């Protein structure tokens, strides 16, 4: 998924410059190029996730050291457990390393007995050694289990803390961040990245310690048995390492190609399936299949190559291991004949060579694991270190009985630095007045809402409620003063009751029903079978968009705030229900200052103040009659709407008015 998002991302960026004016401001803002360039590796193809993560494509963090340091800081509370884990892991490996030598003693004893003592075996000695071995094996298992338990619990606690911190952080980051980021990317940080961290941490914690202990321990044991044979073995080890690194290097290219091809193919699938209706209607089947087969062929070509190369790793390291095995057998045999080492030591040495070979081929894996841990952690920390909204705990709160006078004083604002889209805007809105915000699609009508709700802060100038600068009020308090119905409805997985009472958690059924009635939602709620207990499913697909809108309105009605923001409040509601809603809205707006983003001219006509917005700027301001008189942008807009009815009749009507 992510990788697909990134693809889109790239496309977006490349087309960024072509589209500026004629486009929704909200879309524009989602393409802040600089913020998206932070993604390591240029964006494409994150491994270990998404539909196509078959192969490891190692992702490099930007700052490995720094990120690891931060991660360690998170582990500080667990330092004791960590230490224990390392000790246990080292101990269990050590027991493992000691056992072949002991086992070899038995073999030697047997060999000696058979060849020199006519089969007179010292069973007491063998029994003793076996008891030592039993002790070694049991301790190895116990220590290993304890180590596993400890590192598992550390990594899960780490994951828990990281997730919790991210959730907390969510509420402290300004909206600008979320408007400029793809939601899929943030989602992937919360789930995939944290998962990667906990999983790889758990894995590598024991791996690193045991690898180091094993390499050192085995080396010592080998040297004890025969420095000469050790020397030969050590000649073979670099062979493995060199080969592995060559293979990794060579195959990266194919992994990348595979990842990219898979992304393209999956992108095509996603696109064609989502646009199935259009594809069908325009007989696009053939073209789609052609494109698909082309992409599929590309994927095939890169996929088998990368698979083959990665499949080579095991046989070749295995072969090199076998070379070591043969070398040990020959040398060991030769030395044993010369009586410089015992038969048991050959056996032990064979085991050691295998034990030595194994961690060596693992180191490449561990290095990769650490890299992807760091890359994931880097994104998580990147999020956790995002600049927060300024602290407002000492600002005004508990503002009761606000009347709802709203004043804009020389407000200047722009989403991007250097581009002001509101230039020196002033307006004085009396309590209870209706403000209609009007303009063509994509003109930036939601900007004012963003400012009023303090989702964004003004660059300069002031917005005052009853004479108080909203920057002096706590954000949560400002928002409490507004009832809001947004362009996108938003409901959560819960009962209808819970959804309506979201704004007033202690609301009684009576209050909720009143609100629902006012919003004309009662009818569909009662006919749903389960009434207010009906559960909205996770995707909120079990109710219609009109019904969603009604619920949102009911929720707003219940919140009973002195000011309202209605953003296309009724655009998703069918025309008949709309009549009912408009009545309810009229009741609701009575005595409340209302900001309405509306396309409907009937709403606009009744507004006390109309703000006409084009290209983000407020270009005209006044009531319906004044603006028509002015014969400017608003007038053109208005007349073109009623073209079919005829301009004259409207003009006549106005004159009658």
């Amino acid at each position, binding site marked *: 998924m992510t990788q697909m998002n990134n693809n889109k991302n790239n496309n977006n960026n490349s087309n960024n410059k072509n589209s500026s004016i004629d486009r929704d401001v909200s879309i524009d803002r989602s393409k802040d190029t600089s913020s998206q360039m932070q993604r390591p590796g240029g964006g494409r193809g994150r491994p270990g996730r998404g539909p196509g993560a078959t192969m490891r494509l190692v992702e490099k963090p930007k700052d490995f050291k720094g990120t690891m340091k931060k991660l360690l800081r998170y582990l500080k509370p667990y330092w004791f457990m960590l230490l224990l884990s390392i000790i246990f892991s080292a101990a269990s490996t050590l027991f493992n390393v000691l056992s072949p030598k002991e086992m070899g003693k038995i073999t030697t004893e047997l060999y000696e007995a058979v060849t020199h003592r006519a089969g007179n075996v010292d069973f007491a000695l063998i029994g003793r050694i076996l008891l030592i071995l039993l002790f070694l094996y049991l301790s190895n298992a116990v220590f290993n289990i304890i180590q596993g338990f400890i590192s598992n619990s550390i990594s899960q606690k780490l994951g828990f803390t990281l997730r919790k911190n991210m959730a907390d952080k969510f509420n402290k980051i300004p909206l600008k961040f979320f408007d400029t980021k793809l939601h899929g990317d943030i989602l992937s940080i919360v789930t995939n990245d944290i998962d990667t961290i906990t999983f790889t941490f758990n894995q590598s914690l024991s791996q690193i310690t045991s690898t180091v202990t094993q390499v050192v321990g085995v080396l010592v044991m080998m040297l004890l048995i025969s420095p000469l044979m050790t020397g030969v073995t050590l000649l073979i080890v670099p062979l493995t390492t060199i080969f592995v690194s060559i293979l990794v290097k060579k195959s990266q290219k194919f992994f990348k190609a595979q990842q990219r091809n898979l992304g393209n193919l999956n992108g095509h699938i996603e696109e064609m399936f989502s646009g199935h209706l259009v594809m069908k209607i325009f007989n696009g089947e053939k073209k789609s299949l052609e494109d698909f087969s082309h992409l599929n062929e590309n994927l095939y070509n890169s996929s088998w190559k990368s698979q083959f190369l990665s499949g080579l790793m095991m046989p070749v390291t295995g072969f090199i291991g076998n070379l070591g095995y043969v070398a040990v057998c020959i040398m060991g045999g*030769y030395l044993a004949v010369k009586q410089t080492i015992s038969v048991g030591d050959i056996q032990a040495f064979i085991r050691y060579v295998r034990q030595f070979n194994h961690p060596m081929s693992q180191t490449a894996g561990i290095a990769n694991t650490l890299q992807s841990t760091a890359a994931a952690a880097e994104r998580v920390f990147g999020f956790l270190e995002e600049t927060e909204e300024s602290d407002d705990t000492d600002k005004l709160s508990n503002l009761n009985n606000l009347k709802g006078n709203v004043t804009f004083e020389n407000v200047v604002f722009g989403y991007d630095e250097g581009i002001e889209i509101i230039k020196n805007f002033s307006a004085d809105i009396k309590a209870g007045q209706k403000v209609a915000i009007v303009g063509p699609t994509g003109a930036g009508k939601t900007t004012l809402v963003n400012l009023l709700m303090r989702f964004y802060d003004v660059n300069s100038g002031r917005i005052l409620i009853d004479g108080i600068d909203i920057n002096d009020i706590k954000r949560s308090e400002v928002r409490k003063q507004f009832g809001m119905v947004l362009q996108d409805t938003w409901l959560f997985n819960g009962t209808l009751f819970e959804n309506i009472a979201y704004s007033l958690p202690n609301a009684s059924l009576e209050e909720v029903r009143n609100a629902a009635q006012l919003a004309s939602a009662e009818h569909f709620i009662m006919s749903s079978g389960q009434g207010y207990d009906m559960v909205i499913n996770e995707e909120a697909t079990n109710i219609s968009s009109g019904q969603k809108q009604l619920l949102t309105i009911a929720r707003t009605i219940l919140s009973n705030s002195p000011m309202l923001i209605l953003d296309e409040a009724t655009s998703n509601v*069918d025309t008949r229900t709309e009549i009912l809603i408009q009545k309810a809205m009229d009741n609701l707006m009575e005595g409340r200052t209302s900001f309405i983003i509306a396309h409907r001219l009937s709403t606009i006509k009744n507004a006390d103040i109309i703000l006409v917005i084009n290209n983000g700027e407020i270009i005209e301001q006044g009531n319906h009659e004044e603006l028509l008189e002015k014969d400017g942008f608003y007038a053109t807009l208005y007349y073109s709407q009623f073209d079919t009815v005829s301009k004259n009749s409207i003009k006549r009507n106005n004159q009658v008015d």
Partner: protein
Amino acid sequence: MKKILSFLKKDVYRILIIFTLTFLQTMTGLFLPSLMSDIVDIGIVNGDTPFILKIGGIMLLVAFIGILCQITARFISAKLSARFSKNLRSSIFAKVESFSLPEFDKYSTASLITRCTNDVTQVQHSLDMTLRMALSAPLTAIGGIIMAIRFGKNLTWILIFSCTALVFIMILNFKLTVPKFQKIQKNVDKLNLITRENLSGMRVIRAFNAEGHQNEKFDQANKLLTNLHLVIGRIMSLLQPMTMLIMNLTTIVVVWLGSRMVAGYSIKVGEMMAFLQYVMQIMFSFQMLSMTFIIIPRAMVSVRRIEEVLETEPLIKDPLAEDLLSPEKLGRVEFENVSFSYPNAIEPAVCNVSFSAMPGQTTAIIGSTGSGKSTLVNLIPRLYDVSSGSVKVDGVDVRHFEQSDLRDRIGYAPQKNMLFAGTIESNIDFARDIEFKRIEEAARIAQASKFISEKEEGFYSPIAQAGTNVSGGQKQRLSIARAIANHPKIYIFDDSFSSLDFKTESNLKKALNEETKDSTVLLITQRVSTIINADKIIVLDNGQVVGMGKHKDLLENCKVYYEIASSQLTKEELA
């Protein structure tokens, strides 16, 4: 499983080769310890250095043959599994492309996408694993046991005992963890859901100061997830040490008993050493096998999901050749007593609708959300088939058309504007080989010329996947251009002007009027002002026609229409 396996039919001999090669490679691996035992029992005992060197040379050769076999097997299997997934993927894709809307409703788009992407990857992955490991593991185990019997004779029963213990532990582990993994998946979904809620509902959450509420929910899910992970992590961290322990205990028993046999000269020391190595190899192969046990159940789920798709026959198919008709292209659309119900729906979405739309006329369909407007027009290009009655185009039931012929006659601008990766030109053309001049014209009519010309590359400006790099209004205009580019005889506009501002809409309609003079136009809308001049207005309510006629007439005799109109027009306009 059958269906998926049939994709491997042609590869049977390749699989056999892989099998043989793997077998050979396994045998070479098993041969080495036996050679080693010769070195000990003959070479060392007799102090015969040349013999040791000779056997050593043979060992090298054997090891080399082993790797040759293995690399060849890997080469064949890499190609095989990649081709397998290529073929599988393309037949699923082709199948889904042949689906009509009922099948999409049944599976949901998202699920079809995962089936074609994730599920295929999953199956490919496990095929790969099977070819690599699952094949060599049992071979090693069997070969190892045979060799062990040859060398160890009476020691073999120990092996059988400890292998049983290993299998038991694996099954136990499997039984314990699988249900937990399912629970974890559910919890991860839940956490995802809450995070998505937090993201998409951020403005509302902040507006209602409900951050605490959301955090509590997240916290709960987080705790649950962490606890599940803790439990499952513990079970998993038991597995590896336990199997290791069993292996080690086995060697202790083998050595104890073996040393007695050595003392009694019934086996040689080298043979016992070889036996110990076989024990190790056998145990390792069991561990490998257990890895495939983890993958296969997951793959089976994917296999089932894929087969479900492959076995689904699209409901809407072209008629048999003898029933095929292709009348002259006029543009007439007739509905005769048409009813339509979605599968499993209690009430019909469209009920007993009859009307006709003629060339040169604009027929508007108005009604509240969910009244069945879109469903009604979807029956014309046969995106769904009627439950009863008949939809006729140019006098012939749509079920007698070849689907492509039928759809060629129709220009459809759907409610959800969908663009595809490519250029502006390719989106309007849509693989229909339309002349560039006509494409320009279509863009001009759709009021898209201006923004297209403002782009650096004009008509060849890139469109991102799903058209994410153009605004809603631009998408809608391109979608309209696409619908009209082919000079269709029937136009269907499903709420196609909703994202346009009034000025653009009125310009577009003026241009369209000229274009659609001789065609049939079907117009779905919510705005009364759009259709005041329509030749025929059909008022839908709950899937039924409650009024039909001209604006003026309907205002007088249709209550529903009057209500709709009165909410949008001023008193004077209603009069």
